[in-house]
């Protein structure tokens, strides 16, 4: 990064913090601090919702995912629009009418305190750990590629977020989320334009798309059904529907965004807007990844994108062997580049045989490059069995740092920081709300009001921020536990959703049946997780359906026993 890029990045960070603090000033009561006084317009809520869901890792990983695995990840979001409609009809009017501060508050009125506490507790564990990873995941990538200190990167993101989130509460979070989402989209669009302009002079975007398609990267829709296949039309539509319903309907970091809407209509419109925009947005980000892939068919990519692993191997006894692989890789990439240009030329003509022959040559050249990459990762593993052998997360940022002009690098870095900050801010805001409303006020200080509650909420935000920063600092030493934290959400979401569906729709189910049903549902998810290899999206379906089914059976069997007696 050049000085101009640093100026752009630092200016953006200072602006976000200052704007958040300024927007969120003068909060005098809990409703103002935690729900922005229920005064937000739909477009502010909509962009806050989108910025909350789109973490920095979304913008770093998603293009990399298209680079390695193609665009099929877009199917993950197919259930989202339907979930937005269901929530608009059910959750939004119920939460608004009851004037709750958290989703879990509703459960006590509908069921009892233990069900509310169970849901709040599961949220605090899951989101508290995930919040640390929201900071850590982009920080490790940025610090590796920029050679910045990991601890300082985490501290910069963490302290900036805590400052405006604690200071201004939900209003500050929503308004900065709005600005951050704008910066993110401008940054991504600028990167896309430069990417297309960086293609060889006689290669158009259509040509690049043809090359990416030939190499299997444009597989956006797959109608085949397979339980083990993580991303296909059915898992995305059905499993994704349950996941998105759980995330937007029961996760306080999202519920709090639409509870801040000034009316049912404003909140609903925000969700529906998200339902319309989210899939095209993800498609666009994945398409950037596919175009980065196409770009690297004409321009030699690094043998391995994760420079931390490359530095490690270069300092090991395998250094000379790796250097030899790099030289061979450069030659193989040149061959592939020529094959890609031949394919472009052939695909412009009308001769299918010529296209097929050029495609076969490109495939053969690609095969050779893959072999060399596999040999390189084999070296990493021989040197260190724990070494990272995937570099998906590093692909997009490597392109940005290598090929974007001065100023735009700073803008894209600002976009990545903005994405990290927006998700973290919403999470801290929600963690503090749940701690204060569902634990502190409910269990210890029923009568606490006004400035006292605002002050305590600020303290809770700072403490959760300190926990998240501490967890992020420590995460480097957690190894495979990080993956466990990542799937933690999918292990609990289905059960929590089941509790809420019972609350919304099945009036005859009482508190004890719902609570016991949730325990059975959770046991079913854990059993599925341990004994089968079905894709994680289906855990949400299992947890939800078993919770609802078990609660119904328990409720009915209880009634039968009462009648028999």
């Amino acid at each position, binding site marked *: 990064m050049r000085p101009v890029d640093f100026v752009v990045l630092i200016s953006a960070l200072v602006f976000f913090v200052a704007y958040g603090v300024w927007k969120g000033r003068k909060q005098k009561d809990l409703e103002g601090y935690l729900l922005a006084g229920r005064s937000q317009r*739909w477009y502010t809520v909509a962009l806050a919702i989108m910025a909350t869901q789109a973490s920095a890792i979304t913008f770093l990983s998603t293009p990399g995912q298209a680079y390695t695995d193609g665009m099929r990840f*877009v199917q993950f979001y*197919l259930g989202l*629009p*339907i979930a*937005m*409609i269901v929530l*608009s*009809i*059910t959750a939004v*009017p*119920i939460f*608004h*009418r*009851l*004037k*709750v501060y958290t989703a879990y*508050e*509703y459960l006590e*009125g*509908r069921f009892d305190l233990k069900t509310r506490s169970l849901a709040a507790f599961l949220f605090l564990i899951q989101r508290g750990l995930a919040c640390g990873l929201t900071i850590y995941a982009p920080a490790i990538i940025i610090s590796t590629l920029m050679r910045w200190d990991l601890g300082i990167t985490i501290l910069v993101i963490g302290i900036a977020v805590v400052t405006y989130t604690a200071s201004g509460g939900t209003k500050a979070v929503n308004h900065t989320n709005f600005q951050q989402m704008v910066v993110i989209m401008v940054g991504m669009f600028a990167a896309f334009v430069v990417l297309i302009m960086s293609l060889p002079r006689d290669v158009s975007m259509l040509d690049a*798309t*043809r090359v*990416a*398609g030939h190499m*299997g990267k*444009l*597989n*956006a*829709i*797959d*109608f085949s059904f397979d339980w083990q296949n993580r991303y296909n*039309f059915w898992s995305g539509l059905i499993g994704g529907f349950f996941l998105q319903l759980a995330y937007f309907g029961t996760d306080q970091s999202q519920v709090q965004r639409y509870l801040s809407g000034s*009316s*049912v*209509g*404003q909140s*609903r*419109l925000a969700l*529906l807007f998200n*339902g*319309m925009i989210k*899939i*095209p947005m993800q*498609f666009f980000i994945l398409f950037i990844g596919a175009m980065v892939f196409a770009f690297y068919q004409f321009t030699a990519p690094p043998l391995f994108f994760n420079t931390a692993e490359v530095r490690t191997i270069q300092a090991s006894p395998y250094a000379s062997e790796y250097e030899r692989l790099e030289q061979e890789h450069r030659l193989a990439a040149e061959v592939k580049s020529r094959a890609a240009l031949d394919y472009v030329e052939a695909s412009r003509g009308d001769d299918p045989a010529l296209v097929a022959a050029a495609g076969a040559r490109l495939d053969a050249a690609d095969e050779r490059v893959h072999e060399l990459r596999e040999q390189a990762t084999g070296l990493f593993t021989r040197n260190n069995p724990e070494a990272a052998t995937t570099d998906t997360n590093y692909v997009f940022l490597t392109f940005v740092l290598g090929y974007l002009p001065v100023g735009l690098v700073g803008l894209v870095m600002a976009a990545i920081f903005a994405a990290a900050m927006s998700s973290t801010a919403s999470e801290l805001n929600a963690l503090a709300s749940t701690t204060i409303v569902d634990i502190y006020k409910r269990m210890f200080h029923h009568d606490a009001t006004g400035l006292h509650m605002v002050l305590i909420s600020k303290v809770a935000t700072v403490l959760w921020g300190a926990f998240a920063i501490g967890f992020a600092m420590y995460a480097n030493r957690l190894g495979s536990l990080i993956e466990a934290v990542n799937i933690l959400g999918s292990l609990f979401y289905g059960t929590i959703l089941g509790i809420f569906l019972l*609350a919304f729709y099945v*009036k005859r189910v009482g508190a004890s049946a719902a609570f016991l049903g949730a325990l059975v549902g959770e046991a079913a998810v854990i059993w599925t997780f341990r004994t089968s290899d079905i894709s994680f999206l289906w855990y949400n379906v299992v947890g939800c359906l078993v919770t609802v089914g078990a609660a119904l059976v328990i409720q009915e069997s209880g009634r039968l026993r009462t009648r028999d007696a």
Partner: protein
Amino acid sequence: MQNPNEPVERIVIEEERPPVGGTWRRLYTIVLLTLVADVVIFWIFTKVFS
């Protein structure tokens, strides 16, 4: 907090019209049609380029 066991959806839906788009039913239909259009476009995209 009010009693959550009271039926609420019907009252609120009838009370409030959307800020834009006419009726909620129309907006829900638009969202669903957008989803269908996305799937169809992506399917064509996959077929054409893969």
